[in-house]
């Protein structure tokens, strides 16, 4: 065993090297990112839901770091202090840890996890995607159909439709009714406005979002959908109510309508579809589309 003695100081040296390399790397990456002023979409909320979710993320992270950082510091300190070469340190191979020790190591994480649960349970109910957002403004309903490989948006009240583009007024709750047609499961996600939900054939999942600030926000499918997956993107434009109204008028005057032929055409797989506006839609389109799948579900976890 003697040949191993003396590795302690090398270890020390290397530990220092390792840790500093770790920190330097991390710093470099963060600096590069921050200097380039990029959009941390998830932590840079532009909507009511996204800010609440980002707060939940930050709060959870804070709780977790509170236990993790001291644990790591103690661990690496102990690892350093009781290195073999440090003969001054106490050595007690038969050390007996009492009952208190056992109690402590179960109690500490339990406490922190209960704390997390305390944050989590109310937040889960409060931020349930099907929960309506209370507001003075009347909610806007938008029906969303995921197709291969595009997003089709129907505005039942305005009787217009779009592809790969959705415009909404700010400060107005928007109720997205998500479904899919002849498409694998897709996940509807606009990180700046709030978290995602799956769009599935034969189902309607309701997602409530609200934009606080005007702007163009990237939306996409977070779930893999096949060959056209990475091109299945859309722009979500949040604008003032006036601006929205004039856009609706513009759409109503657009030359093309979402007829059943046009719908059948859209249904064929295609990639990188340009944003399109349709003046008219069939008001029954969404329910007809759903009816195709009737009887194919109604069990499982949908409520």
């Amino acid at each position: 065993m003697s040949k191993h003695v003396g590795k302690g100081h090398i270890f020390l040296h290397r530990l220092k090297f390792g840790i500093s390399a770790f920190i330097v790397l991390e710093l470099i990456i963060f600096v590069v990112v921050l200097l380039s002023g990029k959009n941390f979409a998830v932590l840079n909320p532009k909507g009511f839901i996204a800010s609440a979710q980002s707060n939940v993320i930050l709060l959870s992270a804070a709780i977790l770091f509170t236990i993790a950082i001291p644990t790591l510091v103690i661990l690496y300190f102990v690892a350093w202090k009781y290195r073999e070469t440090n003969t001054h340190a106490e050595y007690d191979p038969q050390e007996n840890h009492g009952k208190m020790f056992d109690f402590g190591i179960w109690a500490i994480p339990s406490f922190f996890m209960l704390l997390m649960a305390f944050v989590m349970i109310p937040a889960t109910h409060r931020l349930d995607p099907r929960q309506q957002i209370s507001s003075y403004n009347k909610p806007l309903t938008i029906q969303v159909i995921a197709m291969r490989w595009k997003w089709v948006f129907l505005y039942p009240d305005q009787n217009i439709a779009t592809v790969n583009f959705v415009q909404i007024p700010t400060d107005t709750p928007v109720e997205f009714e998500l479904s899919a047609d002849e498409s694998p499961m897709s996940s509807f996600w606009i990180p700046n406005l709030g978290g995602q939900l799956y769009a599935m054939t034969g189902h309607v999942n309701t997602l409530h979002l609200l934009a606080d600030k005007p702007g163009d926000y990237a939306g996409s499918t977070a779930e893999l959908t096949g060959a056209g997956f990475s091109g299945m993107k859309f722009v979500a434009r949040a604008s003032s109510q006036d601006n929205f109204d004039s856009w609706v008028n513009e759409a109503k005057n657009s030359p093309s309508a979402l007829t059943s032929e046009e719908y059948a055409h859209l249904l064929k797989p295609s990639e990188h579809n340009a944003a399109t506006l349709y003046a008219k839609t069939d008001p029954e389109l969404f329910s007809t589309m759903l009816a195709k799948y009737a009887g194919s579900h109604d069990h499982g976890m949908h409520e």
Partner: protein
Amino acid sequence: MKEFFLGRLNMHALPHEWFSVGGTAGFMGLFILAAIILTRTKRWKWLWNDWLTSVDPKKIGIMYFIVGAFMLVRGGVDAIMIWLQQALSSGSSHGYLTADHFQQIFTAHGNIMVFFVAMAFIFGLINYIVPLQIGARDLASPFMNTLGFWLYIGGVVMVNMFFAFGGEYAATGWLAASPLSSIQFSPGVGVDYWIWSLQISGIGTTLGAINFIMTILKMRAPGMSLWKMPLFTWGSLCSMIMAVIVFPLLTATLFLMFFDRSFGTHFFTTTGGGDPMMYTNLIWMWGHPEVYILMLPAFGVFSEVVTTFSRKSIASYTSNVLGMIGVTLFALSVWLHHFFTMGASADVNAFFGVMTLFIAIPTSVLVFTWIATMRKGRIRYDTPMLWFLGFIATFTIGGIAGLILAVPPADFQLHNSLFLVAHFHSMVIGGVLFGIFAGLNFWFPKFTGFRLNDKIGRYSFYCWITGFCLSFIPMYILGLMGATRRLDHYDGATGWQPLYISMFIGGLVIATGVALQFAQILASYLQKYRLRDETGDPWDGRTLEWAVASRPPYYNFTVIPEVTTRDAFMAMKSAGTVKTVYEDIIIPKNTAAGIYIAIFAFFAGFGFVWHIMWLAFVSIIGAIVVFIIRGFHDDSEYTLTAAEVEKLEKARIAKAKLAVPGKYDHTDEDMGLQQLIGISYTFLIDIVKNKRWRTW
């Protein structure tokens, strides 16, 4: 007629694209090379008798390791290809892969790394170490164990077979999300290869797990109660119990998917009354426990490493074991956290979220027991401890990420983003793989009779940890920026490219780490005299695997030890009761039945992939027949008399005494990288200059 004989198989299925031609040629080349070497060195018989048909779990463990290492390189090439595509494919550039091909690569990468690398290494460790740790001479069912191994090999062959036939693997992600994997959206043979590679190897896993549960429960040395078992054995027991519970579920789910795809049933389809959400549920009911099946033995490895190198017994054995049991129990009840976003009610999501939080409690307990073990220890920093220190950092970061993901409203924003991908790589690389590497460095002397080179081992660790940071810190950041996983292309305006490039560079650094691990083994081999382990106990070990010689004889123990305490071997050493007497030993005989059954299983799968039904049915019948014949085989054991054992032991000791230093053994230190490169260089120059191949 042609359709009857060949099913869907036709000329178009033969390799014609660069990757399928390349893959096929590469594998063929390797096989031909291996065949030439074996023929030249007249080693076929040796290979067959000493290795392939062996029922010795130690040999099977080593074979798992060799194949796993090979698959690590195979899956690593996939990883580099994925990251290269993503580093290039921004804005107007679309990289060098089509979307479909890119998706096949990450699917194959995930399958290979989880099923054929991590599982292989874990099974390798369990095979080698568990019987030794519990003081057993063999397994409850050696045949079931070989069969499990060979079915794993069947899966390995199946997952690579698409190169030669079909040129297409599943493009659906590693769990073949439904309905993307239905015949409607994935009409090719890729998903069928996915089904059958998992099906065959998964059945092998179930069999192996049953065998190890029985072995641990029934074959322990006298006196070793469950509460005296070594911690690695505990971790393995928990893991195998979980495997037996959930792997049959995978088997059933895969069968349903197979029926959907091949016989037009509607279990998981979007039409005809099928329910893809059911598939999502079923696959994660298996999928979440699966990650802990990998993790629990790794926890066990770290417990062994920390106690041995701190030279202390574990701080609170009871809490440590209860921690592992707790993880096992919770791991069975959290699967829904993989699809909070599917639309379950807030109550359901909150329930599974809380269960997921609770899994962190026993996990933290394990960490605390390790800290308390190190405290007041005399910690020696050999390579295994280094992997432990690296593990703690990556695992903590990954754990924090996992707990954030466990909060449903947070998960809505992070699910399917690169943040999630970073989480599980922190766990699988930083947890499982680092654990395996710690275990490999720790037990290597037991496997081979010589220690691993310490210097190069350290370099490889530094590469892994640096590469890990370069790859996965940017990945967390990208997730927070809203980057979804599995993108084959993204907008230039997102500004993500530098981070993707960092990931790619990190991948290269990790690849260097892997290369250094191979170099480490080579360098150790060159200095195997210097690094030899004469005592069988190079680290002042605590558990019974160190009580036997390195390498252990195939019967493991000349005398089955009597166990009175935990850390049984440590206690024997201090009491001076390590004894040598000889007795009769019953040994299981070699069998090739496992190989035959696995070959049949492979052809059954191949038949089903290509709809060659006669082949599938003939093969299934063949497998059953071999199984039955084997079942009637009474003569599967033989007895080694005490006298023979004594002769063998004396011969072994005499042989060990004869060991002489090799060419590179006359140094005081482990060989460095420079020296290794020098030696390799001279070696190659010698071959070329003196045209050595003429004499081969």
